[in-house]
């Protein structure tokens, strides 16, 4: 996968080992002697500790976006002209869409990068205050596409990581753009990316008292939407398997809520067997994808169960007369966070994965539901209902450091981006004309935005990074 590296000589005449900040002439002068030394060191071998490589640490505080420039990727074959431009624009859209990066528009560029292999005139990019520069080249032959790219820390004049290339099909050009953006995001933040991932959700249409619902899947940015079921019956709350090959969801096709397993590629469906008189809903896969944890209602009570998909063995995990639902496993699979109204109102609890004593972790004002364990294991996202408003929030796994990220008439059902840094959820507007839409927000509470989807949507489940 690694693309062979070209000379890293670049333009080091104005090398400045500072963090990505606009160059200051006086400092550059002062550092001339130091520079000579550093350049020599650089040419002699890999540079070890730089004074301040370009690095964005995602914290809870205010972040000044990193500025970046993406000159349109070079088209290495005539056929690649359009797609090279499209991929460049998608990389820009992905990065700028995070709110962590700000594009330096092409109109401001002093120099262009007409060839992927030519040395970079870093001074020209410093002059337009681009802290990061992303160059690339695209080859298209038939339906085959190859994209290669490099990322530079403009102010240090250093390449960040080696060049990379991705091969795919022209039809899948968006995925290749997302992969480039993921790599850039990773190199600058040190976090995993999330652009090349998909979301399964419920597409909604029709009036509020006769809502039509069908499962749909899309890229995380709303592109490539496909329907997975028709709208002949109510479907709810799809959940991706850990590797994205299957989706669990609740269907009313029997007239009773039942859990289906849908194969994303073949669209083949199977139903989790449920005895007459029982309702099954709120399913999630175990981390190995081999079993399902879910709620089963029988005789007025709702408890949490686990069923092994291969053997059919059912294990009852809670035994209380109250409502226990919305189970979500920890990343290492040893604990389950869920909601229960055993105290009188909905609250969050954690228990061992095989059942046993549960400890309550939510103690704030209001009611807490739909807990979802972060893929990083550090946080639990939840829906909170308090004083007539709904919120999406996060808390540590011991219930401390609760932070509400949103507030509206009705926000619910958080799902985590694969890197555990962004949360997507449903937001429904008030009144007879109320409709649901998908939104995303950073775990810091910043960058709240609607996911662009044609039509109404609810119940998102964010899948893994694609291979």
């Amino acid at each position, binding site marked *: 996968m690694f693309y062979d590296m070209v000379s890293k000589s670049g333009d080091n005449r104005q090398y400045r080992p500072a963090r990505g900040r606009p160059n200051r002439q006086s400092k550059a002068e002062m550092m001339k002697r130091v520079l000579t030394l550093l350049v020599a060191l650089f040419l002699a071998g890999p540079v070890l500790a730089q004074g301040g490589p370009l690095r964005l640490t995602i914290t809870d505080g205010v972040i000044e976006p990193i500025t970046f420039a993406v000159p349109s990727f070079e088209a290495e074959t005539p056929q690649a002209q359009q797609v090279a431009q499209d991929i460049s624009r998608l990389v820009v859209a992905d990065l700028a869409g995070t709110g962590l990066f700000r594009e330096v528009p092409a109109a401001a560029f002093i120099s262009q990068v007409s060839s992927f292999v030519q040395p970079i005139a870093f001074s020209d990019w410093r002059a337009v205050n681009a802290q990061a520069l992303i160059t690339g080249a695209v080859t298209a032959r038939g339906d085959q596409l190859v994209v290669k790219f490099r990322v530079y820390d403009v102010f240090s004049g250093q390449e960040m990581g080696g060049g990379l290339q991705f091969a795919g099909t022209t039809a899948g050009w968006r995925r290749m753009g997302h992969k480039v953006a993921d790599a850039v995001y990773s190199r600058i933040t040190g976090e995993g990316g999330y652009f090349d991932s998909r979301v399964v959700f419920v597409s909604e249409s029709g*009036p509020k*008292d*006769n*809502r039509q*619902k069908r499962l749909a899947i899309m890229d995380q940015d709303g592109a490539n939407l496909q329907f997975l079921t028709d*709208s*002949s*019956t*109510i479907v*709810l*709350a799809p959940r991706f398997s850990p590797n994205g090959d299957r989706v669990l969801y609740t*269907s*009313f*096709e*029997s*007239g*009773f*809520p039942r859990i289906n*397993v849908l194969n994303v590629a073949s669209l083949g*469906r*199977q*139903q*989790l*067997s449920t005895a007459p008189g029982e*309702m099954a*809903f*709120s399913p999630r896969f175990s981390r190995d994808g081999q079993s399902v944890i879910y*709620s089963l*209602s029988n*005789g*007025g*009570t*709702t408890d949490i169960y686990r069923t*092994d*998909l291969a*053997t*059919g*063995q*059912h*294990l*009852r995990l809670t*035994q209380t007369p109250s*409502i226990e*639902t*919305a189970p979500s496993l920890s990343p290492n699979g040893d604990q389950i966070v869920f*909601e229960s*109204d055993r105290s009188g109102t*909905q609250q969050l609890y954690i228990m061992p994965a095989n*059942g046993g004593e549960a400890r309550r972790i939510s103690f704030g004002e209001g009611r807490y*539901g*739909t807990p979802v364990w972060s893929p990083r294991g550090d946080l639990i996202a939840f*829906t909170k*209902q308090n004083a007539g408003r709904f919120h999406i929030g996060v808390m540590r796994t011991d219930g401390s450091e609760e932070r509400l990220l949103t507030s509206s*008439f009705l926000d*619910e*059902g958080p799902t985590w981006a694969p890197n555990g840094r962004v949360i997507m959820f449903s937001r429904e507007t*008030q*009144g007879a004309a*109320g409709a649901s839409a998908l939104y995303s927000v950073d775990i810091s509470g910043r960058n709240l935005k609607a996911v662009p989807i044609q039509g109404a949507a609810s*119940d998102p489940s964010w899948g893994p990074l694609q291979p």
Partner: protein
Amino acid sequence: MNVITKATVLILVLATAACTNPNRFGAGSGGAGAGADVGVNGAGAGGVGSVSDPSSPMFFNQTIGDRVLFVIDSSAISQEGRAILDGQAQWLLTNADYRAIIEGHADEQGTREYNLALGFRRANAVREYLVSRGVPSGRLEVTSYGKERPIEICSQESCYAQNRRAVTVLSFARIS
């Protein structure tokens, strides 16, 4: 820890299994693909027969009342609800050819999962009441639509009060 092993965990979903009760009458929610005999919105759908015929589903739905309402977060049956359910029980005992599915519903104030469980709790409370009045439990099934099928669509208590309901939906099926 109960371990219940079932012979078959996964059964194929039959494409034709649109509804387990094709002969249902009246105000049931019946899923999104509402058939001709299912009044999705409830209030206007009276069922078949004549209001003046005490053995007709229409009499059951309109004269006796096919639904009971609940207060927020509760599955307790009110005094008024008990009177309606007494009538339902009497009718079901008299008209032994009918079965019923009790559909529980919630208003939109609450998460989807919790509301499904709450609707189930309400439907089950109605079922238990009807059984306590002598209706054979085998003739009564329960399901829940949570907040998925409101009949009133404003976001105010006047609508919410109508949506927090359990509806007894008749179906015609001779008990063998």
